[in-house]
C-alpha cells in the first residue's frame, strides 16, 4: 500500500507524521520516501546511512552545427520556447526545457542530439532498518517534477510505502500523490489550515484518491476544520495536541516516538484506520 502524506499549507506536520508513522510500524514492512525534493527534511529526523547516490538529469538538446540548416523547425515545435533559431544561431535555454524530445525527433536534418543535464540527486539508504529514499533538487533548478518521478521509481510495492509530499497543491504535489492508495492530509485548525485543506481535498477528489485528515496542534485555533470534514464526510484519523515538548523535540530533529514512545500507539492506530479505509474503498470500487 502506498500512503502519501500531504497538506495544502506548509509546516503543518507532514514530515512529523511520515517519520513517526514509519517508525511505529513493524520493521521490514515499511519504506519511507521523501518526495519534497525542494526542501527535503525527513533525513534530519532519521539520520539514514546512504548507500547510493545517483545523479538525475533530464535530456536537453544540443546542435550538430555541421548538419543544421537553421530551418527553425525546432523553435516552432517547442511549446516552452526553450530552443530558438536566430539568424545562423540556435539558442537553447536549458532551464526552460522539459526534455520532451520533440525537437530532436522532428529535426529534418537529424542535427539535434540530447545530453543529460543534472537537475538533482537521488539518495538511497536505510535508517534503523527502514529503507529510505530522498531526492535533492539542485539550487536554482525550477523543475521538481522529473526528480520526484525518479525518486518514486524506488518504490518497493511489497511494503507499506510512505511518501512525504511537498506543501501546496501544484505539480510537485500531484506528481507525488499520483498513484497513491491513500492520502493523509495534515492540517491545523486555523483559517490558513482550513483554506489550504479545502484546496488539497479538491485536488485529491480530482485525482480520485481516498483521503483522511490528521489535525495537528488540535487545541489551538477554532473548530471550523472539524465542521468542514464532517460536511465533506472526510474521516479525521488522528488529533495531536499543541505540546511545547513535541515542538522542542522536533526542533532538535528527534521524532516524537523516540522521545515519547507512548505516542507509537497513536500512530499504529492511524495506520490501522488508513488500512481499513483503503480496504473498504477498494471493496466499494470493486462493486462499481
Amino acid at each position, binding site marked *: 500500500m502506498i500512503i502519501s502524506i500531504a497538506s495544502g499549507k506548509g509546516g503543518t506536520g507532514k514530515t512529523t507524521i511520515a517519520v513517526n508513522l514509519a517508525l511505529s510500524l513493524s520493521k521490514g514492512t515499511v519504506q519511507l520516501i521523501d518526495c*519534497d525534493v525542494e*526542501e527535503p*527534511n525527513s533525513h534530519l529526523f532519521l539520520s539514514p546511512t546512504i548507500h547510493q547516490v545517483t545523479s538525475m538529469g533530464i535530456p536537453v538538446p544540443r546542435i550538430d552545427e555541421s548538419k543544421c540548416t537553421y530551418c527553425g523547425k525546432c523553435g516552432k515545435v517547442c511549446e516552452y520556447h526553450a530552443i530558438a533559431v536566430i539568424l545562423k544561431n540556435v539558442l537553447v535555454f536549458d532551464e526552460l526545457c522539459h526534455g520532451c*524530445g520533440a525537437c530532436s525527433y522532428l529535426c529534418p536534418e537529424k542535427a539535434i542530439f540530447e545530453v543529460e543535464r543534472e537537475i538533482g540527486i537521488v539518495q538511497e539508504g536505510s535508517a534503523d532498518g527502514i529503507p529510505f529514499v530522498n531526492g535533492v533538487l539542485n539550487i536554482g533548478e*525550477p523543475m521538481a517534477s522529473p526528480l520526484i518521478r525518479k525518486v518514486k521509481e524506488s518504490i518497493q510495492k511489497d511494503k507499506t510505502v510512505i511518501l512525504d509530499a511537498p506543501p501546496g497543491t501544484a*505539480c510537485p504535489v*500531484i506528481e507525488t500523490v499520483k498513484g497513491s492508495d491513500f492520502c493523509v492530509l495534515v492540517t491545523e485548525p486555523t483559517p490558513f489550515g482550513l*483554506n489550504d485543506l479545502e*484546496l488539497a481535498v479538491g485536488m485529491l477528489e480530482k485525482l480520485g484518491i481516498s483521503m483522511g485528515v490528521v489535525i495537528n496542534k488540535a487545541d489551538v*485555533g477554532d473548530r471550523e476544520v472539524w465542521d468542514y470534514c464532517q460536511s465533506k464526510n472526510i474521516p479525521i484519523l488522528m488529533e495531536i495536541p499543541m505540546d511545547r515538548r513535541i515542538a522542542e523535540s522536533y526542533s532538535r530533529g528527534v521524532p516524537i516516538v523516540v522521545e515519547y514512545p507512548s505516542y507509537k500507539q497513536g500512530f499504529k492506530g492511524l495506520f490501522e484506520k488508513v488500512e481499513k479505509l483503503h480496504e473498504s474503498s477498494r471493496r466499494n470500487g470493486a462493486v462499481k
Partner: protein
Amino acid sequence: MEQNEIKQLAIVSGKGGTGKTTLAAAFAALAKNKVMVDCDVDAADLHLLLQPKILMQEKYFGGRSPHVDLDKCTQCGLCTEVCRFHAIDNGVVDPVSCEGCGFCRHICPEEAIVMEEAFSGDWFVSETPYGPFVHARLGIGEENSGKLVTVVRKKTVEIAKEKNLDLILIDGPPGIGCPVTASLTGVNLVLAITEPTLSGIHDLERILKLSDHFKIPSMVCVNKFDINLENTAQIASYCKKNGSRLIGQIPYEPKVVEALVQRKTVIDYPCNEVQGILLKMWQGIEMTLRGEA
C-alpha cells in the same frame, strides 16, 4: 509628477508554515504607499487577512493541452510511443501527466490532435484597507504556477506605476522551485523567515543559496526563536557567515495564532510585544530598501 523608484521585497522561507503570510500581512499594515501580491498561487492565504474587495477578475491560461479527434485517430500508437511523460494512450490523454509539450500533435500522421489553451485559474485585483492587492487562485491540480506568479507580478508593477507607489510586498511560496524562482526575479531584497528547528535551518540555507544564486541581498527573521535558543544562535552565526542580516527575532506567542483565527493582522490585534518587534523590523527593512542602511 516624477515616478519614484519601485522597490520590491519578497518574503520567502524554503520551509512552509514558518510565518510568511503572517509577516506579509503585518507589513501590509505597517508599510506606506505600497501594493501587495500573493505569489503562493497554489495555496494562497494572504487574502484571508487583508479583507479584499475584488475589483477585477481575469482568467489565466497556463499552457496548451492536446485534444484528440477520435474520429480521425487510427489507434496507430505513435503518440503513446513518443510521449516521455506517459500521458497519452492511443489518443486518450491523461491530463494529470501531460506537460503540454505538443509532441503528440506534431507526430500524429492523421493530424487528429490539436493544442488548445488550457484554463488554469483566476487572478484578481482587489482593494483592501491596506492598499491595492493582487492575488490568484490556481485551478485545482493545475501546472505552471510559476507562469501565474509572473502574470500577477507584472500586474502588480503596473499598479505601482499607475498609482505612483514605491513598494511591492511579495508574499512568496514555500520551496525553492519554479514558483519561488518566478517570485524572486528582479526583487531588491529577500526576507527569509525561518524557525529554530533543524528543518528550518536546513531549508533556510537552501533558500539563501537560491537568493545568492540570483545575486539578491537577503535578510533573515527567526520566528518562535525561543523554542530552541541553541538553534537560534546557530542561525545567527550562519547569517553572519552568509552576509545576511538577522533583522528580527519573534518569540513564540499564542496571540499570533489568535489574531489569525480572528482573521486579523498581528498589528490589528492586541499583542504589544510582537507588534513592537515587527515595527522595529519593518523600520530596518525600509531603511535597507531606501539604501540608508
